[in-house]
């Protein structure tokens, strides 16, 4: 019997104490649904899709700021495609585009730098969202722009870091399925510290078999009754992480409080450019006003992200809110819990 079959059979037949494990990575969420993993698990094991999709946790005010820069300041907004359809308090970036704003989809922050280089008459702003995995490429983009002497490139930051979220969500679950790529950058120290504080977790890779293995390890460890941490993705995640990437980010950015859509403000869970790089910080460069939007919605993305409800328990799910007309951010990105649940039939 292969290890995978063993893991699957263990997870299928598990009959120990109830176990709630939260994945905090959008790619994990997507892959778990795509591989039909929830259906394999014994009813004693529940998976919660936590706040790990960068698009899903990007607050309404951030979209409003981007719309402000596009419409009021005439900036060219460059962004990953997912963000274009995320609702702001008045409109999404797609809505702003319909009003004449210049919104361009790029696949990497460097594409935005190149756009600025090729179009010196345009003020290019890159929407810098994401976790530890993508932040290094955002600051490298700033470095490139700086070295090229560009005066027409800046970034609007909503970068986030995971440790604050782990602490904030620790009570929502029995253990975390830690995101492999985040810890490839940050290393395993944070997870060990969490374990010392009584918060358990395993670092998982991204293929179906890596996910099954990590889940089986977590369930087994949990039934032993002590806080645990296991790195189940050692081929990529080293204890020390990537010191070069960490140092690069540290040179350009510093921690700040950050708002997570649906969850609220988590202290020191965001990253912003240091003062000496203010000319590349769109918020400072264009004196973006402090937008505190009033935004009322029946959308329960926040409860979904905290594992309080499953997506189909939201009154809007599949009705007013679907991938063609997303109300909440979790329905926009393929990595969002609601979108994955809808697409792959979480209720199958």
């Amino acid at each position: 019997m292969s290890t995978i079959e063993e893991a699957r059979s263990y997870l299928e037949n598990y009959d120990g104490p109830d176990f709630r494990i939260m994945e905090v990575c959008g790619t994990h969420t997507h892959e778990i649904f795509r591989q039909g993993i929830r259906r394999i698990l014994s009813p004693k094991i529940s998976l919660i899709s936590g706040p790990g999709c960068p698009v899903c946790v990007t607050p309404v005010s951030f979209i409003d700021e981007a719309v402000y820069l596009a419409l009021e300041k005439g900036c060219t907004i460059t962004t990953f495609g997912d963000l274009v359809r995320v609702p702001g308090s008045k409109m999404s970036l797609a809505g702003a585009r319909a009003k004449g704003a210049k919104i361009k989809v790029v696949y990497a922050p460097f594409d935005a730098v190149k756009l600025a280089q090729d179009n010196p008459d345009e003020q290019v702003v890159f929407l810098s969202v994401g976790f530890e995995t993508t932040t290094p490429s955002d600051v490298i983009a700033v470095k490139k722009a700086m070295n090229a002497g560009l005066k027409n490139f800046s970034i609007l930051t909503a970068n986030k870091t995971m440790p604050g979220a782990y602490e904030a969500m620790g009570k929502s679950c029995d253990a975390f399925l830690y995101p492999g790529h985040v810890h490839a950058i940050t290393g395993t120290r944070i997870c060990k510290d969490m374990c010392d504080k009584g918060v358990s977790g395993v670092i998982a890779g991204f293929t179906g078999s890596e996910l099954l293995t990590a889940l089986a390890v977590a369930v087994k460890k949990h039934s032993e009754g002590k806080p645990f941490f296991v790195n189940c993705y050692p081929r990529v995640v080293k204890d020390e992480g990537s010191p070069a990437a960490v140092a690069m980010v540290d040179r350009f950015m510093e921690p700040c409080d950050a708002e997570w859509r649906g969850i609220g403000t988590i202290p020191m869970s965001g990253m912003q450019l240091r003062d000496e790089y203010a000319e590349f910080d769109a918020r400072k460069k264009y004196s973006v006003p402090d937008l505190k939007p009033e935004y009322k919605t029946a959308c329960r993305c926040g409860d979904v992200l905290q594992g309080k409800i499953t997506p189909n328990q939201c009154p809007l799910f599949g009705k007013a809110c679907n991938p063609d007309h997303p109300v909440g951010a979790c329905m926009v990105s393929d990595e969002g819990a609601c979108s994955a649940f809808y697409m792959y039939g979480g209720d199958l």
Partner: protein
Amino acid sequence: MSDVITLAHGSGGRKTSELIAELFKKNLGNEYFTADDAAVMPRPEGKIAMSTDGFIVSPWEFNGGNIGKLSICGTVNDLACMGAKPLYLTCSYIVEEGFPVADLEKIAQAMGETCKKAGVKIVAGDTKVAGKGQVDKVFITTAGVGVIADGVNLSGANAKPGDKIIVTGDVGRHGTCILLARDEYGIDADVKSDCAPLWDAVEAVLEVCPEMHVIRDATRGGVGTVLYEICDQSGVGIDINSEAVPVAPEVRGVTGMLGLEPLYLACEGTMVMFCPAEFADKVVEALRKTEHAKGAAIIGEVTAENKGRVVMTTSIGGKTYLPQPGNELLPRIC
């Protein structure tokens, strides 16, 4: 003849005649190819099928073919999906002013070669030239007529629970090829379009299984879209095994990197067939003997449960819905 297409080539005058004689007739000519207002052919025996399709693929030339070859395969395969042996085609070009004549010749050549392979004749055509910028290089529309053998009754509404589902080859190659040809992602990979005429494959299949229920060309939207269409039309469910779906390693590599599902990428030489279970192995065997269906495989079956849904068994034994077809991933793929 001049080097580039000018508005005069579409005027209907001397330049047009020159173009027809030197370029189209040379490559596409046959006994019915006409200079008159309409082509005249003998009436075929049996029911006829008729279809038309427009082609606007960008770029017009790609690894494994060009818009000319594609315009023949598209219509020939649409006819074949109804069990119709393709007989005659018409083609209409809209060419942008300034398009190189040598490139148009390449297109006509590819059309001529593909017609020969498919056993079909172009009997009438039309050429219009649009001003610079009014069309992107060249657009082609083909229409075709084919004849259906007695007893053959194919339709998307015919799938029955228990039917086996067969693909005639590996999936997603044309879509991946075009995506790479656009060079927007900076990925270098050798992916050749599967663009091919498939009448011979269909003919071989109907010989061993005249009771075949459904044949459909997995073009825009790929195999995944076809599966959902048939679920809807026939009022059934579908179970597929993701491990059984053939995907070329180079396609798997590119789609894996970009997070795309090969089942939703276009094919231009791959069909999906639904046949009574007892014929499935024979059909696959017959397909594998034909030039463009050597990779034929059974990927799943029709169920009475889960009406309207495609359920996929994943490589680790999980079950999940194949997502419903969404927005077109890439515009102008064919």
